[in-house]
């Protein structure tokens, strides 16, 4: 059943799924037609992933039905989904890093013995279909993200599928890899498969999709059919989708919404500042870090951040970003090289002393490293100043001083919490991120290292976080911004360096269109060069 000659319809009718406190899917109905790319658009939390989990058999709807070609089906487990030919490429990789490509693909095969020969042959077929080359014996963890995704797609189609679901497939890819992906999707579509593409970027929906459904707050709030979308110009489609995505908020969000939704190529709005005359805030010279685990370490990293500058670090996740941020924050020692801050060598200075000098770090692990979920919002806001006046006196906590500071920060940063005494862990991801930023950007901060600051946040908070960073830099603060989101880097940074396997492989001044391609070029070049 790899190909279907007549078009077959997978219908979802009245799908409702509630979790404690939220209705993730509220009476969603849509039709997925074979030979078409159906785009699902919506913000984080709009219910896209829940809908996909239901199609993949990971979750069961509270009510509603799924039928394939008119026959109702009960997708009670992932196995049923696989047997029905529903292949899903999840946002988070489902490949086992310690396995080879073939082992990953064979996982879930029936039969007693592993059939390596048949698997190699099947991989060959799929690679040809997708127009890619995959080394069957490579260790999955050695592959680049784009290649891993190709393996994931091959895995989703392994048993001959009728529906291929791609959950945010472009979020971590270089522009070149996205182009590749688009070609593969077109080939899959030509084979007569139905494709569901989930994204939050408008221009991808327009470029790759045949029809678009917009979700908001768990509801299906807009659908643009095949003929309609084909007849629209890009701008008309954009307006229609934006109206559905933001509803009444559109006027309030204004043109920011357009940028946030990834409607156009991201571009830095402000004219490039001449930063060369500004004083150097942070200078890393030949820094090689030495960590405890199996993380990728920085290798011979040299970089400069000036006052008022936002330096972006682009790269695929896990290429030494964490080591770089920790070596600046002081949480990880440098085996060689020097870290100079405001002319002072702080290579051997501890975390606490660096904080007092004005070096701050907003971790990407905001739930575990960044906050203590079981402690109050107020305590989390001062937790990095334990023992310091006015919050502590002679070793005793001064609740009043803590509460005053907490109230001030909660108001200033718009942290939505029932009270300062609420446990931080009960807040939403966006509000937890605001706690981190409020804590790190105040009290004499001069340089802030932010790692993936907007990952997994809703659009409004994303916008707010970016504004905070821009304002911080405009007031003379320096920002070292590590991110996997290329659009974000281009929107915020003055310069962008590309990190690959712990090394900086190239830098680009962010001075107009074409930056994304240049950065992408370094990213792909770096990967191919080291392979």
């Amino acid at each position, binding site marked *: 059943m790899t190909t279907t000659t007549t078009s077959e319809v997978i219908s979802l009718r009245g799908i409702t799924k509630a979790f404690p406190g939220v209705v993730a899917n509220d009476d969603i109905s849509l039709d997925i037609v074979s030979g078409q790319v159906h785009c699902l658009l919506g913000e984080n939390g709009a219910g896209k992933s829940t809908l996909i*989990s239901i199609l*993949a058999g*990971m*979750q069961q709807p509270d009510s509603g039905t799924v039928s394939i070609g008119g026959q109702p089906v009960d997708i009670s*487990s*992932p*196995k049923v*989904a*696989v*047997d029905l030919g529903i292949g*899903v490429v*999840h946002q*988070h990789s*489902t*490949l*086992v*890093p*310690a*396995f080879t490509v073939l*082992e*990953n693909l*064979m*996982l*879930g*095969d*029936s*039969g*007693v*013995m*592993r059939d390596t020969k048949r698997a190699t042959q099947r991989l060959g077929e799929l690679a040809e279909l997708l127009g890619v080359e995959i080394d069957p014996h490579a260790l999955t963890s050695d592959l680049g993200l784009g290649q891993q995704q190709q393996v994931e797609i091959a*895995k989703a189609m392994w048993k001959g599928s009728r529906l291929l679901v791609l959950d945010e497939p472009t979020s971590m890819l270089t522009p070149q890899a996205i182009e590749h992906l688009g070609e593969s999707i077109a080939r899959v579509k030509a084979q007569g498969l139905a494709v569901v593409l989930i994204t939050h970027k408008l221009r991808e929906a327009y470029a790759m999709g045949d029809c678009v459904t917009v979700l908001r707050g768990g509801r299906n709030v807009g659908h643009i059919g095949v003929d309609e979308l084909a007849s629209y110009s890009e701008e008309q489609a954009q307006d229609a989708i934006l109206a559905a995505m933001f509803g009444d908020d559109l006027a309030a969000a204004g043109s920011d919404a357009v940028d946030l939704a990834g409607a156009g190529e991201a571009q830095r709005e402000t004219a490039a500042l001449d930063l060369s005359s500004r004083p150097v805030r942070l200078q890393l010279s030949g820094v090689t870090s030495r960590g405890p685990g199996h993380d990728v370490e920085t290798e011979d990293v040299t970089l400069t951040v000036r006052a008022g500058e936002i330096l972006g670090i682009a790269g695929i996740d896990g290429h030494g970003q964490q080591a770089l941020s920790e070596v600046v924050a002081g949480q990880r020692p440098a085996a060689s090289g020097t870290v100079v801050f405001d002319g002072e060598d702080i290579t051997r200075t501890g975390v606490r002393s660096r904080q007092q000098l004005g070096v701050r770090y907003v971790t990407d692990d905001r739930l575990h490293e960044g906050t203590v979920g079981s402690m109050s919002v107020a305590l989390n806001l001062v937790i990095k100043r334990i023992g310091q006046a006015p919050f502590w006196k002679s070793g005793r906590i001064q609740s009043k001083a803590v509460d005053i500071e907490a109230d001030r920060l909660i108001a200033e940063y718009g942290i939505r919490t029932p009270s300062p005494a609420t446990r931080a862990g009960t807040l939403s991801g966006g509000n937890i991120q605001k706690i981190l930023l409020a804590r790190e950007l105040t009290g004499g901060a001069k340089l802030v290292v932010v790692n993936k600051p907007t990952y997994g946040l809703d659009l409004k908070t994303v916008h707010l976080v970016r504004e905070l960073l821009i304002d911080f830099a405009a007031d003379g603060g320096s920002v070292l911004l590590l991110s996997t989101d290329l659009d974000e880097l281009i929107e915020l940074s003055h310069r962008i360096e590309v990190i690959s396997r712990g090394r900086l492989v190239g830098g680009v001044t962010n001075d107009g269109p074409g930056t994304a391609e240049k950065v992408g070029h370094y990213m792909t070049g770096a990967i191919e060069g080291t392979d």
Partner: protein
Amino acid sequence: MSDLLSTAFVTVFVATVIAQALPLMLASVGETIGEQAGVLNLGLEGVMLIGAYVAFVTTLTTGNFWFGMLAGAVGGVVANLAMLVLNVWLGLNQIVIGLAVTLIGEGITSVLYLQNYTKSPASLGSQPSMPIPGLSEIPVVGQAVFSQSGIFWVVILITLGLAFAMARTNWGLSTRSAGQKPSSLDAAGGSVMRTRSIAVVLNGALAGMGGAYLALLTTSTFSPMLTNGLGFIAIVITMLSRGRILIVMITSLVYGLAVAIGPALQVSGVSVPADIIKMLPFLIVIVMLIVFARSSVVPPALGAAYSRGAR
């Protein structure tokens, strides 16, 4: 020193090495399969003791060593049901339940033995050997290795079979993925619960057989706390061997060597304090840990309960 190299002496020495190594090897292979599937069984010591006691009683009653081994395996599986239900199915803490199983195993077997057998300590005698025609004629090796009991050969075959199955079958692949990244197995349409359940049952059977081998063939009797920490040594060896069953077999032989070398030195007239000799196996383990611990790799999902959709 010439005694040290006489044919008879070397034969006994090699046979002792094997007798000491096999219980550990069985338990370690069992633990390897469990850990590869993501289940850490700290109850191994208790499971081995229960296997040893059940095997001892069965062979004492029936007079048959094969029944004893089988009963040991069944006893091990029953003892491991606690791990299966509480850890795999209900997702409780594996360390707590594992230690409980160890304590229960130690307690129950000691009480039952002291209740029933102290007045007339029983020995089982020896299991008839099964010389391999031809090979058993070879000097030293023929006597030491190729004249072992039939049980020895069955155990070796089971172990090699499992090594092959882990490396070459879809079952082995599923088992390893359950310990590496259970969500991948789930998404691929496999069952994490079933895969881990099978691994825990095998783990119990092998550990039980390890205890049984210790009681029936190595010591020919049972006594309270017979295993004397062997279950925990098996856990160490498992972690050092990175899930490779053939390495487990070799490491177990090194341990057997450490145990056998003490009595051998005494027999040969070298005066070594008895305390040192008793310490030797543990010293070897400590040295192995110091040398190899940095390279020990455990499956990422080891000890973590799996529930679908939770991240």
